[in-house]
């Protein structure tokens, strides 16, 4: 490591620790060694971006957050900690040093997800207080299956009203909506449970294989339950207004939150790290009850099916509709509601999360947790 390069690097570290935002390439100051090793380029660039994001709102990251970022490590497999170009002698070994400004946003997000996961564990699950509801003995016996993003909040709402699912003679309600939205729902639900592959890596094989994700296949769900309880007790619900009556309540049931695609992808990435910090059940709790409420106002378009998969979704929807009608299930709502609406499909070239959006959101969440007044 050259003396001038090393001093310059330590000077930049001190500059960033003090709230500076000068990019590495434009930095010419010097400093003294303040640690055993120079922090990685990813960590330092993330810190710089956090300062920039905080400045836009007149704040700055807390001293604790600054140190956590400097000492953080990117989780999982991927690019290792990189050195700053010009800070070290050109070594023939190890990954090439980089100008941190050239790092992809996704690399900075990797570091941020580790910190966000720690924050979630520290915050704990913020489930609504569970006063055990009085179980209504006269309740309608039901089971809610189908699109998990629709069924889960409705089921939670029913439980909160003293109407848990199950019981002798339950009617099985298979809830759904248009296939394009259900595909996005299925990925979203996975992201808030156990994490998933990235959107397109998860989606494209289904489209290429001319099949839909299992949780989207309403006809298969209906057939499975029909075999168990008889077809007469299976209802397919595509009209959300029909659901309360079928499960024996009058008031409307909770609707699923609409999240920006970037928010869902951030949850996916945080879920992966959380898997190393807590058990699966706690992970889902933290994601759904602690992280999700903080993502509700995240900017950006919702997740939508890419335009190139619209024909696939329409084809599968038509097939699903025809098979359900042929089988004779009781369908509440127009069966054509399964066919994707134009607004459920993204315009060409614009679908799914963006690396920049996910990073901006991660920065916002980190700063929210530790916001400090400007000094």
């Amino acid at each position: 490591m050259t003396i001038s390069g090393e001093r310059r690097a330590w000077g930049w570290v001190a500059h960033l620790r003090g709230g500076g935002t000068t990019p590495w390439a434009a930095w010419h100051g010097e400093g003294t060694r303040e640690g055993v090793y120079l922090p990685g380029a990813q960590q330092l660039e993330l810190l710089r971006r956090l300062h920039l994001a905080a400045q836009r709102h007149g704040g700055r990251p807390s001293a604790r957050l600054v140190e956590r970022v400097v000492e953080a490590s990117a989780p999982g497999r991927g690019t290792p900690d990189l050195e700053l170009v010009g800070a070290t002698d050109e070594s023939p070994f190890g990954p090439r040093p980089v100008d941190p400004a050239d790092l992809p946003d996704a690399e900075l997000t990797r570091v941020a997800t580790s910190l966000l996961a720690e924050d979630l564990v520290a915050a704990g699950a913020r489930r609504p207080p569970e006063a055990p509801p009085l179980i209504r003995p006269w309740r309608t016996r039901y089971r809610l299956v189908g699109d998990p993003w629709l069924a889960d909040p409705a089921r939670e709402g029913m439980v909160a009203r003293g109407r848990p699912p199950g019981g002798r003679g339950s009617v099985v309600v298979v809830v759904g909506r248009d296939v394009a939205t259900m595909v996005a729902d299925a990925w979203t639900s996975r992201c808030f449970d156990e994490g998933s592959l990235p959107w397109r890596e998860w989606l494209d094989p289904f489209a290429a294989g001319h099949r839909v994700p299992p949780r989207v296949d309403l006809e298969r769900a209906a057939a499975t339950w029909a075999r168990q309880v008889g077809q007469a007790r299976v209802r397919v619900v595509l009209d959300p207004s029909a659901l309360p009556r079928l499960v024996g309540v009058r008031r409307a049931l909770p609707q699923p939150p609409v999240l920006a695609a970037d928010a869902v992808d951030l949850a996916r990435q945080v879920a992966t790290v959380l898997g190393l910090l807590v058990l699966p059940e706690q992970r889902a709790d933290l994601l759904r009850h602690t992280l999700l409420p903080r993502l509700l106002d995240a900017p950006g378009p919702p997740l939508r099916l890419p335009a190139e998969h619209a024909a696939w979704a329409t084809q599968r929807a038509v097939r699903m509709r025809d098979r359900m009608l042929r089988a004779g299930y009781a369908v509440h709502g127009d069966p054509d509601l399964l066919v994707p609406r134009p607004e459920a499909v993204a315009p060409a070239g614009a679908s799914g999360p963006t690396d920049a959006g996910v990073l901006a959101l991660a920065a916002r969440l980190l700063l929210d947790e530790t916001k400090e007044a400007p000094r």
Partner: protein
Amino acid sequence: MTRRLLLHVGTPKTGTSYLQDVLHRNRRTLAAAGISYPADRFDAHFLAALDLMRLPWGGLETEAIGAWDRLAEQVRDHHGTSIISHEIFAAASRSQVGRALRDLGHGEGTEVHVVLSVRDLVRQIPAEWQENVKHRSSISYARFLRQVQDPSREGRIASWFWSVQEIPDILNRWGHDLPPEHVHLVTVPPPGGAPEVLWQRFSETFGLDDLDLDLEAERVNPSLGVPETALIRRINASANRQLPPADYRPLVRELLAHQTLSRRVGSPRLGLPPEVHPWVRDLEDSWVAEIRERGYDVVGDLADLEGAPAVGAWADPDQPSEKQVASAAVDAIKALLLENGRLQQEAGRLRGDLDAAHRDLERSYLRPTYRLREKAVRRLQTSRLGRGALRAYRVGRGRSSRSA
């Protein structure tokens, strides 16, 4: 007593599974000699490494929660020599190494020694591709080689490969805060040598020479030949989406790869394509020169890191002999059939046990006292007064259960 830690951080495919197996099985003997191998299960240090590096590993990570802190605490609590060994520690980043050494007491009285077992790249490159295949990958050998040779090292394959195989860089990360005499390189002897030489080198490095250890191997990570690896790769491409990791590990990795296909030793062995040899040899030479300059403690011979030249015909695993793959597939099918038969017998035995338990349960239900009590409860439940009496009885008995 001084705390001393021997931290074996890699590299993969250098006899590490055998070493860890011996250490785990002999931990009582080691403890009697004042050496702690703090592992309640054979993969305890693997789980600790996953935890330290926050590394997902096909669902195993749920077992790793808190494993690093537990391991570090055991090392700090032991006044004597401790040994930690797992090859994926090689991939730790500088910040993770910093945390690891701090947690283990470096700078606070613990004398830390880093041990790195190393083998020539000529053998390591095909071995790493095979490890990828045994971990569900369906990447072709040619594509793997292209990624590994790409100077940008972008992508998961290349970044992982170099993070666990580039010896000077691993030693930069793990050894930068240690004196060179506390960094020990154990070289794997060239092929064809006596198999006990590697163990002797490990034994010398870890100070085990005077101990009477059981060296019978139970867990090893055996290698596969060209058609066998090609077969596993095809199985991955076909079954990956349907076969969850929890099933893949016992069925494909253990049953097929380790227990069945690794026994086919007559098939062509994996090797480097001849055109890649010069590039690899240049790399090896530069590594040897660098290591020699740094003055580490070398156990063995640095010349072991210079791989053997290409000899004979090279067998391409991307275009294997279909006859050999078919033969391997027959062995695989046979193994799966035998395993299926064993499981069916086991299921039949368990079904028999369950039926016997049901019969015993029914017999106990038929006892006159049980029938009398059942009849009384049924009658009481038909009237409000009776239900009240039952409730009072249950409260008095101190049970909330509604069972009779």
